[in-house]
């Protein structure tokens, strides 16, 4: 059991999300989630988007150094995001979202993050894991830096673009028969939580040419119209560097 409440209380709160407090909000405030996040981390972005969609207020705790002893006490493996939910400390965006799905669905049923149909659920799992396992690991800071040190900047970008392109090709094929307004139909679900930050990152940071991916391009435009997504964008976080 993680019992680092003192550490948590000592952490500087960079921003409180939400408006003026009512009785309900005071009650929620006492149990408010804490999200350790880094503005440009696409994995943190996923969780911010999920929390915004659910209308869940949370304290945003900016992680400015991954070797900060205070942060490492809370999370010895030094990754972001970390979600603190009462006594629970959960690391890793896929684990945060998956482990919270039942909790979020029970307590905050609208909107659901997973469909009922088992076939549709499998497609959502698959889209989420294509992003989390076949694309994002290769644009991770550690990987990109390692390659840059070995061969310089010029070779790093094309390689990362080709990896993203391969993943997007697979997603385009997976989703083209299912996508409507959103990735797998007319409701925003798990697949969208992973896809939306990935599209934003690919286009803004890695200059990926989207013309070969018409379905994904259209989804990207849809996401950009959503308040919950815009609020989660890296450039809109308290620790953003402009």
């Amino acid at each position, binding site marked *: 059991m993680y019992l680092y409440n003192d550490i948590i209380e000592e952490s500087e709160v960079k921003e409180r999300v939400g408006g003026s407090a009512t009785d309900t909000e005071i009650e929620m405030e006492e149990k408010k989630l804490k999200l350790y996040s880094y503005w440009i981390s696409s994995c943190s972005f996923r969780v911010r988007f999920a929390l915004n969609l659910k209308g869940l207020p949370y304290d945003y705790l900016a992680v400015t150094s991954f070797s900060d002893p205070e942060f490492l006490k809370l999370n010895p493996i030094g990754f972001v995001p970390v979600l603190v939910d009462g006594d629970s400390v959960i690391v890793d965006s896929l*684990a945060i979202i*998956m482990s919270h799905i039942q909790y979020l669905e029970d307590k905050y049923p609208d909107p659901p993050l997973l469909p009922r149909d088992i076939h549709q659920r499998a497609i959502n*799992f698959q889209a989420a894991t294509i992003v989390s396992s076949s694309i994002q690991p290769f644009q991770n800071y550690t990987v990109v830096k390692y390659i840059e040190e*070995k061969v310089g900047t010029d070779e790093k970008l094309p390689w990362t673009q080709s990896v993203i392109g391969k993943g997007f090709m697979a997603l385009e094929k997976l989703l083209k028969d299912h996508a409507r307004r959103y990735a797998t139909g007319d409701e925003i679900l798990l697949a969208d939580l992973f896809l939306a930050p990935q599209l934003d990152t690919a286009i803004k940071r890695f200059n990926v040419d989207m013309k070969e991916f018409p379905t994904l391009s259209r989804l990207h435009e849809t996401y950009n119209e959503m308040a919950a997504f815009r609020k989660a964008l890296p450039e809109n976080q308290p620790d953003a560097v402009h």
Partner: protein
Amino acid sequence: MDLDLRKSGHGIGSNASLQSNLVLYSYCHSSCSWRIRFALSLKGIPYEYKAVDLSKGEQYSPEFERLNPLHYVPVLVDDNVVVSDSYAIFLHLEEKYTQKPLLPVDPQLRALNLQVASIIHSSIQPLHMLNVLKDMEKMFCAESKPWAQFTIDKGFSALEKLLKDFAGTYATGEHIYMADVFLAPQITLAVQRFDIDMSKFPTLSRLYETYKALPEFQASSPQRQPDALIHNP
């Protein structure tokens, strides 16, 4: 292309009287395929094994392309549901086949298992898969093993810290769960293929000794698969 039927067979636990609608496209040496073979073995679910010979490029056949345009194994066909990617397959199996649960009910323990599996699935294995190692060798004009060792060491350091306060007989206590399903093939690969020095990771090392002795893990190991005969060195 018709995948070579000589290499098909039923997975361990197959029972002639049991109707099986599961087909697993697998390669004996793939650690991601091994996870799913292990999970199916633990759950006692029979399945049809369809071998995909990665060394012959069978993953690029038009038939397999329709199943998984990323050209990776494993792929599970469950009646009319096709799922690729081992994490997605695991979640599908866990939801649909509830015998012998591989995720605990306790929320915190559940989260820990999802987290361990995700670290292996997203932060370790993708970075040392064969395609990537080939890319690294081209880019670096050097042996890729140091790169693989770098990524595995980093991931194992994280897992060691995460699990040292939770591990019992198994990764997260006294029952075998999702964390073990993902850890067991990964540690085996790290030791056997990438020469990782496990003395730095005492918890993982102890778990590895436990896994090696498990019948279900042995049954799902590369050398026991139908396509292994063709690939013995």
